């Protein structure tokens, strides 16, 4: 090993360096997004399984239940629709939900493997690093949703063409909400093994107790309590936001709830990962093997 070269600013150090400008922030943002994209491309099975899950629901579950469950004309639909058409927005939400939790899993993995530390010791503000990571996770999730919608088109689920474009902001907001929730959960999970708990206590209850599979009025008829739980579930609003956007409409209540939840979950995650407030320094796992 020959002598390592010296940084040319070694002798300095005490002087204030100029604050990072927009260009540096952009470089950092691009770097974080690029790494997430590379990780995603390196894990092709993750992409396949993210698609297979909703497609199974669409091809098998929806086909089976088509005859059992009738869906009356409810907004945003203007005619009677097939059950496959009804559950498609819920399945888009499912992809975002799993992707959000996947990003939570990857943050716990990064923390266990130590990669998280390389991110957290960056001189950029902690909130910026987490928001960049959030955007990266959402971008990957949206890509999966569009591939799913393309396959669903061949299965006869054909919203208006403009809907494919108009749904993008709804997907972005819903994805941000669910990724932020995943991020918040990742700050609370101590070990990778605890992720099974997330499946049982977060993903399944959120998905089943929502309007993803059945219209809310049907749930209300069968169980008023379950209906109330569905109304308290942020995932319901994400699904409705996507459903209406896919047909060129804005569901205002859903929009407001989703935005409020983004602020709440992201704020919580930033709080938890901030060393001055956070939960992490009270235990011995973040920095490693203290």
């Amino acid at each position, binding site marked *: *090993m020959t002598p390592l070269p010296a940084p040319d600013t070694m002798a300095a150090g005490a002087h204030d360096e100029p604050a990072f400008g927009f260009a540096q922030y952009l470089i950092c943002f691009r*770097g974080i997004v690029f*790494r997430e994209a590379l990780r995603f491309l390196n894990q092709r099975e993750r992409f396949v399984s993210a698609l297979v899950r909703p497609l199974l629901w669409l091809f098998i579950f929806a086909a089976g239940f088509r005859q059992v469950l009738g869906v009356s004309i409810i907004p945003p639909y203007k005619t009677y629709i097939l059950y496959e058409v009804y559950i498609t927005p819920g399945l888009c939400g499912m992809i975002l939900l799993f992707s959000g939790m996947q990003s939570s899993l990857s943050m716990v993995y990064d923390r266990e493997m130590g990669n998280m530390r*390389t991110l957290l*010791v960056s001189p950029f503000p902690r909130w910026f690093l987490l928001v960049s990571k959030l955007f990266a996770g959402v971008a990957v999730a949206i890509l999966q949703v569009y591939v799913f919608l393309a396959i669903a088109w061949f299965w006869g689920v054909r919203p208006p063409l403009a809907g494919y474009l108009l749904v993008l902001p709804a997907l972005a907001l819903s994805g941000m909400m669910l990724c932020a929730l995943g991020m918040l959960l990742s700050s609370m999970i101590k070990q990778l093994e605890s992720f099974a708990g997330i499946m049982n206590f977060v993903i399944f209850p959120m998905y089943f107790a929502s309007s993803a599979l059945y219209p809310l009025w049907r749930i209300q008829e069968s169980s008023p309590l379950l209906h109330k739980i569905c109304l308290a579930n942020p995932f319901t609003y994400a699904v409705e936001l996507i459903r209406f956007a896919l047909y060129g409409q804005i569901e205002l209540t859903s929009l407001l709830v989703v935005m409020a939840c983004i602020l709440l979950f992201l704020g919580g995650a930033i709080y938890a990962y901030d060393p001055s407030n956070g939960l992490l320094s009270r235990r011995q796992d973040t920095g490693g093997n203290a």
Partner: protein
Amino acid sequence: MEEGSSMQHAEANEAMPLPAALDVSAVSHAYGRKHVLSDVSFSVARGRFTVLLGLNGAGKTTLFSLICHLYNTRHGSIRIFGHEISRQPGQALRRLGIVFQSRTLDLDLSVEQNLLYHASLHGIARLEARERIGTLLGQVEMSDRLRDKARSLSGGQMRRIEIVRALLHRPPLLLLDEATVGLDIQSRADILAAIRNLVANQGISVFWATHLIDEVDDDDDLVLLHQGKVLANGRVSDIVASTGTVNVGQSFALLTRSASTHRGGHKE
């Protein structure tokens, strides 16, 4: 009058000593009720190789986590080239290159992708980052591994890449937490020699945590940490002389034994 005042100002600046590379002052830390560090104070001088020596569990990694701002310093203060880590984390972290105890490379990414990712986390553009990576990898004789997955590297090679990564943003202070743990004798010697070379020839300040006494040199500065407390701090040769021993190993044994006895006595 103004001239006089500016002259006084200049004199005052001349007289004012430059801040230490790292200044840790009265730092304590606990995980819940478990106290890990108690009133820890020391400095790392500019351009010096300072060893943080302590047994496993002495609190070295917790101290590192506080210096890196992974944990917040609730009691005491930590300054890096005069910038307090709690108040100016950005300015402080820009001056720090860090090699963590456990491996922190992303095993699924290539060497180049790992290094470019780190460069982006310091706002370094790709073109410039590639130039720096080329130079640094050449110096550690690993240019041919640029496109290889980190997973395919040996432990010693991973460490070298982590050192390259720590130097990529040209920090004036390098922290290394048990950087030679798990490496073979030759790799350990190579890494230690390369880091010492940085200090000797380039004036970089190094803070080297270890539990291996044979990594300590007589000319080094030493911070001896035991059960979360600093038992000794200064030039190794001075510590050896003041304890009346013949080498740092004996000094270490004497100081830690007497600290344990003292603590045991208190318990009684």
